[in-house]
């Protein structure tokens, strides 16, 4: 629809700007809060301009943290979150691309059954199966470990499904040409399928990294040792101090830092998306 009336242009811009403001304002407030000193919030009014404590707050939180709230320094939690998000994202991609490959390119008994079983697990996200999963992880002695934090989250029907849909669009003749050219199944996967899936992998990586980063319930359940705290659950602990006012400026500092990695991942991977959109490979 192409309309050329200035009043419409103004209106649409207004709507868009309003939307942006609604989304960005809380983030701005968090940022402002993270630059103030401790007492500035007790009045109940949130200042709208940045304060002088930017570096002090960030340095304090990164290196020492709020030990009174039982939380380790932020860098430990950030590192934990990073490890967990990376392991979950790569693990999910690794497993789902292989299972999609098996389902699409090989004929074995109960192939469709296998696919549907994987697909049905879409109905069972972590939250639904959390008690049995917790029991299994606990029995395996994986509480308070990276394995316990990541493995139960790795199996992924969504990613398998997405890769399957993509593989179905790869022409059979391509695989046949590779067979004639002497490429066995693994060689075909490595030399042809994997490079063709590059942009899909990048897109999924972003989504799955953020999925791993924002995990809250599961880390809360399986970690009691503060060495394994993740940033997202850590924020909750920072805010929920028992007998004192929450130190909002420090909580907001943690919030800002927690937001950073996902934003970075999106920004960095965005270039790959655009590339993938511009040059269609097939």
């Amino acid at each position, binding site marked *: 629809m192409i309309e050329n009336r200035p009043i419409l242009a103004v209106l649409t811009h207004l709507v868009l700007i309003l939307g942006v403001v609604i989304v960005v304002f809380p983030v701005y407030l968090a940022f402002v809060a993270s630059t103030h000193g401790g007492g500035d919030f007790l009045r109940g009014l949130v200042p709208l301009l940045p304060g002088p404590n930017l570096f002090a707050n960030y340095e304090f939180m990164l290196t020492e943290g709020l030990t009174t709230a039982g939380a380790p320094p932020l860098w430990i939690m950030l590192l934990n979150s990073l490890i967990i998000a990376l392991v979950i994202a790569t693990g999910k991609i690794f497993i789902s691309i292989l299972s999609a490959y098996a389902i699409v390119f090989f004929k074995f008994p109960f192939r469709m059954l296998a696919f549907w079983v994987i697909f049905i697990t879409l109905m069972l996200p972590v939250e639904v199966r959390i008690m049995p999963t917790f029991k299994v992880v606990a029995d395996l002695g994986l509480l308070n470990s990276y394995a316990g934090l990541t493995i139960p989250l790795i199996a992924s029907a969504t990613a398998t499904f997405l890769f399957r849909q993509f593989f179905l669009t790869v*022409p059979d*003749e*391509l695989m*046949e*040409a*590779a*067979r*004639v*050219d*002497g*490429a066995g199944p693994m*060689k075909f996967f490595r*030399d*042809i399928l994997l*490079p*063709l899936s590059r942009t899909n992998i990048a897109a999924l990586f972003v989504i799955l990294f953020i999925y791993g980063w924002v995990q809250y319930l599961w880390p809360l359940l399986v970690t009691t040792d503060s060495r394994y705290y993740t940033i997202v659950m850590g924020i909750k602990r920072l805010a929920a101090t028992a007998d004192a006012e929450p130190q909002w400026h420090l909580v907001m500092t943690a919030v800002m830092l927690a937001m950073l990695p996902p934003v970075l991942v999106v920004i960095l991977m965005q270039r790959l998306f655009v590339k993938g959109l511009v*040059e*269609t*490979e*097939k």
Partner: protein
Amino acid sequence: MASIDISAVKKIYAGNVTAIHNLDLTIPDGELVVLVGPSGCGKSTLLRMIAGLETITEGTVSIDEQVVNKKEPAERDIAMVFQNYALYPHMSVRGNLEYGLKNRGTPRDEIDRRVAEAARILEIEPFLDRRPRQLSGGQRQRVAMGRAIVRKPKAFLFDEPLSNLDAKLRGQMRIEIKRLQRSLKTTSVYVTHDQLEAMTLADRLVVMNAGRIEQVGAPIELYERPATLFVAGFIGSPPMNLIEVDYLRGRGDDLKLPEGTDLCGVRPDTIQVADPGEPSVRLDATIELYEPIGGESHLHLRLEGSGQLIVAAVPARTAVVEGATIPLFVRIADLHPFNRDSGRRTD
């Protein structure tokens, strides 16, 4: 280089679809055989069984006197050119040409030499570093050919390689394929349903129908002496007219036809408007449509009496008018006698 032997081969797909019934065919070393036939007659199936992309239900396929039924495509040492080229989209043209050689562990200098040679023969040197999507259809087609010839395989297998090109380019590539195959002398099997392509390319033409071979022979043999009604109708454009013997009797000179003949095939270009002065039959027909197509003209005619529609190909500027009823002549020697029930030629 090698011969290909197909012996009593049968293909039954899942769901009991018999695509090939007991087929025998021998392709001598260096020959270009074209498989032609209507859609669904099993051409691709046969080719893919030779390639090893499809299992063989019964019978044996041998390449170079070795039974290859159980061998992987790569072990059969054949190269295949696909209809949509199936180039690796993420590799450069050079990468596409090299891939098969690399997988075979060919030494680097040998790879470079062969790629350079193939690129020179096919005139794709300027594109070696481009991706397939940056090439035109014709150029992609050449790259697909290049990928086949760098391998120096025992046989080339083509599955309708030109059907995605426009008519003019198809003509050019057809000539190039023929020339290439002549100079390389590599045994080739070429599948097409374009009969012009089939006629011009083939050393030997195999006409298939419903999973069986109807006739094998040099293209011109098949044109001049089609063994079955199917071949008669399939080879030649416009197709052969089939006229009842009973209709022909008593029109013109005495008909002496072999026992069992009840249909006569008449090629459109053997129908003449002037009496040839040789033993011939005379048909009277009304001109329904006059189609000048350049070098010749096609007359769509309705036969007096039977009302059957036939087509005649006459010299370009034959003076006739639509709607007129004219006498036409066919030399008796030009009639192709058939038996309708057996579908076979009777002489």
